[in-house]
């Protein structure tokens, strides 16, 4: 702005100068014209005066008057020009004094001849003190050399020049200035140098600031470049890593795929509506369907017909929530092959979602073999149980025989008595009738015992029914009553009333009870003769819908070293024992979803107890 202003001002000054020169030139020309005309006139009159007379004089006067007029005109002209000049000068002086641009006039030695206030301000000194001081003194030492060269150039080449220079300044230390120089000849024909000095400190500072900013910017750019290159490196590394992990993923996918297809467990993925999305090869072999026949079809294709109807409903209403419930548990289900045969499966379900859409993966294991094995195990257990029942019955035979012999003895006595009565002279028929009735009762009693025994020992298929545990205990007790009596053991039944039914194989549970009673009896017979031999059978209902049956004796207890072993097969503490009783009992109880345990304290007795779940109508067993 400042700069522009200065330039405009300079331009105006130039203008004024050129006008002044023009005026000077015109004046000079007129002066010369006037001179010439006057000289010619003088020459003419000198001759005319001498040659002519009054007429010549008359002409001469006329000429002079004209000339005078002319002179006046010229004088007017001159006055006007002078006025103009003065005005110009005034304007110039005004401009010179108020110009923001400093003007300094130097002589050829570099001494300051003249300067305007702006220049004084720039050089930081009062106007009158400059005169005849050297401008050099105001130059910043580091620019001195340049200035001298500049000044010399101006003086010698007498042309324009331009330089940026730093001036000393007391208040602000240093001022940047643009110095334009012009050499010319003054009136005395001496070289003088005009300098216009423009304060460009702001600009310079701005430039510096810009330069600094630029530097900073550059630095930043450098920094950023290095940052960028670093992040570039990082990216490259990451890309490498990604490539690596991509490779690993592919490898893993390949592995998983091979596992997926090599798995003997069927893997079925369905969407929320039960449509099959993917299957593995095991599914094909389990169900006999090909991949094409399943993918895109409903999962209900694999559900047996009788269940399909309810399943469709179920799929619609509860499928997703139900599946969610199944997550994390293994459920036994029975699904259908292509040939409509049923296949028992272990089913477990996992959920996953892609882009907010849930899918369910069902893993199915064909458990036909296991089921068959379980069936076999059950049969084996039943066989083994039967064998041990026979053994148990053998051990109890004497007691049972005793029990049967009692009614038989009574029958023999009754019938013989009847015969005697009949043979008497006046047989009392009524009495005979009474006796026969008693005989009948005894025969039935014997029959019942034998029936119960036969039930107990005959080989038979597993058959579960609902049963009352207390009735079962009574029956078992009747089978061992003889033994108890023989061994002088007092049996006390403490059975809780109103127990819910259980769902069991009657004979097997009876076998467990008899086995435990037999063990207790064996323990009790070890006691000295005069010790009371007490056996308690107790039942009670637990909170967890199970019934505990306790068989407790006051025998010598089980040795701690033997406690660990007595439940294992073929371990027996008895010389004639098979070692199967307890292990079979435990297997039987466990196959009924119960547990069998015992507590034993030496010299205090042993308690065996087992639990059985109560039967509820909702059980679909």
């Amino acid at each position, binding site marked *: 702005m400042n700069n522009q202003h200065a330039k405009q001002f300079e331009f105006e000054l130039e203008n004024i100068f050129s006008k002044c020169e023009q005026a000077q030139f015109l004046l000079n020309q007129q002066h010369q014209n006037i001179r010439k005309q006057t000289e010619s006139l003088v020459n003419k009159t000198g001759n005319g005066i001498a040659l002519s007379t009054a007429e010549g004089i008359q002409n001469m006067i006329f000429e002079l008057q004209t000339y005078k007029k002319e002179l006046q005109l010229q004088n007017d002209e001159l006055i006007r020009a002078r006025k103009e000049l003065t005005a110009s000068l005034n304007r110039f002086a005004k401009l010179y004094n108020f110009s923001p641009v400093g003007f300094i006039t130097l002589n050829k030695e570099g001494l300051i001849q003249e300067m305007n206030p702006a220049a004084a301000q720039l050089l930081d000194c009062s106007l009158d003190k400059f005169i005849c001081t050297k401008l050099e003194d105001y130059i910043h030492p580091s620019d001195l050399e340049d200035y001298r060269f500049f000044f010399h150039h101006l003086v010698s080449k007498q042309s324009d020049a331009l330089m940026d220079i730093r001036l000393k300044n007391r208040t602000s230390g240093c001022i940047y200035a643009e110095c334009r120089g012009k050499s010319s000849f003054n009136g005395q024909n001496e070289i003088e140098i005009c300098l216009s000095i423009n304060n460009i400190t702001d600009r310079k500072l701005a430039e510096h600031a810009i330069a600094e900013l630029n530097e900073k910017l550059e630095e930043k750019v450098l920094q950023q470049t290095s940052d960028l290159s670093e992040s570039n490196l990082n990216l490259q590394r990451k890309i490498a890593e990604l490539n690596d992990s991509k490779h690993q993923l592919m490898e893993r996918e390949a592995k998983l795929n091979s596992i997926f297809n090599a798995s003997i467990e069927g893997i079925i993925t369905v969407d929320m509506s039960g449509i099959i999305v993917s299957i593995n090869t095991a599914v094909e072999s389990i169900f006999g369907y090909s991949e094409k026949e399943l993918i895109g079809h409903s999962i209900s294709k694999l559900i047996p017909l009788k269940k399909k109807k309810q399943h469709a409903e179920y799929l619609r209403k509860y499928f997703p929530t139900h599946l969610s419930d199944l997550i994390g548990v293994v459920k036994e289900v029975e699904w259908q092959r292509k040939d409509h045969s049923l296949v028992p499966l272990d089913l477990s379900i996992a959920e996953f979602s892609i882009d907010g859409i849930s899918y369910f993966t069902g893993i199915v294991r064909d458990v036909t073999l296991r089921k068959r094995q379980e069936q076999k195990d059950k049969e084996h257990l039943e066989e083994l149980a039967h064998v041990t029942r026979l053994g148990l019955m053998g051990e109890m035979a004497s007691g049972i025989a005793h029990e049967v012999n*009692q009614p038989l003895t009574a029958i023999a006595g*009754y019938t013989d008595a009847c015969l005697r009565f009949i043979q008497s002279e006046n047989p009392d028929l009524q009495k005979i009738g009474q006796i026969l009735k008693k005989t009948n009762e*005894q025969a039935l009693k014997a029959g019942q015992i034998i029936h119960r025994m036969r039930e107990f020992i005959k080989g038979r298929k597993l058959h579960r029914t609902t049963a009352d545990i207390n009735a079962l205990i009574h029956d078992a007790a009747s089978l061992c009553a003889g033994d108890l009596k023989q061994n002088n053991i007092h049996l006390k039944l403490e059975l809780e009333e109103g127990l819910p039914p259980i769902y069991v194989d009657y004979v097997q549970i009876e076998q467990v009870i008899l086995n435990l009673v037999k063990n207790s009896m064996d323990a009790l017979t070890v006691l000295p003769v005069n010790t009371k031999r007490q056996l308690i059978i107790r039942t009670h209902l637990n909170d967890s819908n199970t019934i505990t049956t306790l068989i407790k004796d006051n025998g010598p207890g089980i040795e701690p070293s033997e406690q660990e072993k007595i439940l294992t097969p073929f371990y027996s503490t008895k010389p004639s024992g098979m070692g199967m009783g307890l292990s079979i009992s435990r297997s039987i109880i466990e196959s009924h979803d119960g547990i069998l345990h015992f507590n034993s304290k030496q010299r205090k007795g042993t308690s065996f107890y087992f639990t059985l779940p109560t039967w509820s109508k909702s059980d679909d067993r």
Partner: protein
Amino acid sequence: MTASKPLTPLVYLVDDEYAVRDSLTLLLESSGQPVKCFESAEDFLANYDASQAGCLLLDVRMPGMSGLELQEEMLRRHITLPIIFISGHAEIPDSAKAFRAGAVDFLEKPFNNETLLQRIEEAINKDLASREQYSEKQQILERFNHLTMREKEVLTLIVTSHSNKEAAKILDISNRTIDVHRAHIMEKMQADSLAELMVMAMQCELI
């Protein structure tokens, strides 16, 4: 103990099973044999009349005291009532033990009633005989107790095969005195001969 009363022999029946007691009672009574029943050994011991002749029909296995234990207890109490065991399941050790302790028989239930009745008769006869024998022995012992000290000494020597001479020498008395004692002994003991005296001496466990 005095001489036996003229009472009908009685069958004691000890069995914990009601039906057995009932039927056997009917059977025995129908054959004219009075019966007294007990449902336990303890009950029997508390109510038994020692003066009553008869026999004991005893079950082996019973709650509380068993038949064999009762047999032991009776021996301890010098109850000589003959015992016929009846057992639901005869086991050899049991029967051997019973026989060793003097049981008349060991019958396995159910048994032939004729056999039972026969055994009962035998047992009663045995009891009657033993009771008779017992009372005879008691009489002899009574007579023996009536002998003087010297007479007892002489008797002991005579029955142990000493001659009169030897006895006189041992007791340092005359032969004649021995003869007098001997006559008194024979009279007091109601013995007709030396042989009879010997038997009586045996009864008195002098030899």
